[in-house]
């Protein structure tokens, strides 16, 4: 068997708008059947990347292949991909059925196949009975389903979703997350979706590509991205973290800014400046001298306490560094501002970020 062909393969793609570099030399391969998220703050180039896959923007340079076929310069109607647009872009002058039929009619699919596929698509997104309504007579969630059906009815090899849940309220958004995942498993095709919401990306996707300022910073599973961020940006953008300046002592130890030496895996050469990322929920707080079981620890003083119901967040001042600690559930007795404490973590909890 040969190496499986990637669903989407981007090689050295750059997109310039006049003088602005929107996407800067991005390499990315998305596997067949994968649920892939492009994550980043607004203006990071994620939407432009998606639009280049769709053919709505053309790359300034680089190569773009879909299932091995070079499509970088092909118009959107010549690509085996379909898009769910950010605000859905449903045609307001057409009914639900006419919207869903549009792509098939453009490709001259005739009855009975036409009506059969449309009926399937309508059933799949549970919109039966709504066929003759116009988009402005539908709720936000229903419009979203129409947009999904309109794209999926064409049986694209890759489905592109641009902030698909951005226009929905929180509750509906959480429902649709589950539904989208289920739908993707059902149709089995590659989904590429763009979002600025890190929780959404973590919850939904098999792999995430984090972008910032036109560059693709890191690609990996949600767990890799969260626990082994490769850059300060990724560590900071995904969830909350404590970033502590440090210097590499040897391949297994780093010296924190306050002089404490901790164990942490790193491939950076000895003597180089790095940052250590510590997730607040991976840190424990104990009374000073209560005996630290394993790993590394710092002594400090509680500076602030925030009660969140399901968790308590402590801001602990340890010398020059401020460490945020998140205690989920009831772990020991609560601390108060001014308490002398020791914060500690397991060896695996500290991620070293080479500069």
């Amino acid at each position: 068997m040969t190496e499986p062909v990637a669903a989407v393969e981007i090689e050295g793609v750059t997109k310039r708008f006049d003088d602005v570099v929107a996407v800067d030399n991005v390499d990315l391969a998305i596997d067949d059947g994968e649920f892939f998220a492009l994550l980043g703050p607004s203006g990071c180039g994620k939407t432009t990347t998606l639009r280049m896959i769709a053919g709505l923007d053309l790359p300034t340079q680089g190569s773009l292949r879909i299932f091995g076929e070079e499509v970088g310069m092909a118009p959107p109607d010549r690509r085996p991909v379909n898009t769910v647009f950010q605000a859905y872009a449903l045609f307001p002058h057409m009914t639900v059925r006419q919207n869903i039929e549009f792509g098939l009619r453009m490709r001259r699919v005739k009855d009975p196949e036409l009506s059969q596929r449309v009926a399937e698509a309508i059933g799949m997104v549970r919109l039966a009975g709504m066929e003759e309504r116009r988009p402005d007579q539908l709720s936000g969630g229903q419009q979203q389903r129409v947009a999904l059906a309109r794209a999926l009815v064409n049986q694209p090899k890759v489905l592109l979703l641009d902030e698909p849940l951005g226009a929905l309220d929180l509750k509906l958004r959480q429902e649709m997350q589950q539904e989208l995942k289920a739908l993707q498993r059902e149709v089995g095709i590659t989904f590429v979706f763009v979002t600025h919401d890190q929780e959404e990306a973590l919850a939904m996707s098999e792999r995430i590509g984090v972008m910032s300022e036109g560059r693709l910073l890191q690609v990996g599973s949600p767990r890799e991205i969260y626990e082994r961020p490769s850059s300060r940006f990724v560590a900071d953008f995904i969830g909350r973290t404590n970033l502590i300046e440090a210097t590499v002592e040897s391949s297994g130890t780093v010296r924190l800014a306050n002089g404490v030496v901790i164990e942490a895996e790193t491939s950076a050469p000895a003597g180089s400046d790095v940052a250590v990322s510590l997730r607040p929920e991976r840190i424990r707080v104990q009374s000073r001298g209560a005996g630290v079981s394993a790993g590394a620890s710092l002594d400090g003083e509680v500076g602030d306490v925030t009660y969140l119901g399901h968790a308590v967040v402590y801001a602990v001042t340890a010398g020059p560094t401020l460490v945020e600690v998140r205690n989920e559930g009831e772990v020991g007795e609560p601390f108060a501002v001014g308490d002398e404490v020791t914060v500690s973590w397991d060896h695996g909890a500290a991620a070293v970020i080479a500069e």
Partner: protein
Amino acid sequence: MSGVVEVGLGRRTRRGLAVWAWAVFAFLYVPIVVLVVFSFNASSRVNIWGGFSFQWYGEALRNDVITSAIRVSLIVALVSTVVSVVLGTAVALALDRYRFRGRRALDGTVYLPIVIPDITMAVMLLVFFAEAFKFIDSFGPRFTLGISTVALSHIAFNISFVCVVVRARLDQFDRTLEEAARDLYATGWQTFRRVTLPLIMPGVAAGGLLALTLSLDDVVISAFVSGPGSTTLPVYVFSSIRRGVTPELNAISTLMLTASIALVLGSLALQRRRAGAGRQTQVL
């Protein structure tokens, strides 16, 4: 359900406003209504009511000069509307979505015919045709002012009006709809035909209606660029008024009035129907 915005005005202020508003409506409508009423006056003396009669309509419509003027007006209006809708919409689309050399110059030029007074447009075109004829005559054929110069002139100002109205519509147009169509395998032409055109159609129709109205209304420019035999109805009316008010003139004016009002109400009805289909109302 009230919906009245009271904004804390005193009762007397509010009553005063209402009286004022209805007085203004009276100011706008009384002259027109009086004119219409007197067009049915049987008496040939314009100021004395001599009973109801259609006789002036009959006389007006038996007058060959008037029927010819009506014919000229209709031909010019239809031709200039069709041509200016096509050209004006194309210019609006190009200005809206493409960058090209001379775009800014074109953008500015389009607004000029709307801004400058009719009389200057009229003398500009008169001078232009005079020079153009001199030039063409030197090659043999002889051209004179006539129905074609009137139509050409009407297109010249109507392109601008159509363009402005269509652009207003394009401003509200959501370009991602076109991208969606492209994404769903529509070619550039299919996208225009199936998505863009239907959605800007109200603007195109409004532009066409405006062009039609302006062409039927125009008197100044037509007066300068028409020749013998190509008099439009407004030009005929204008020159007749200078000679004095006749009951026949009342009848023709009433006919023109009816045509204008029918056009407005027709377009409003059309929009209402569209609005019922879930589109926004746009009062012209």
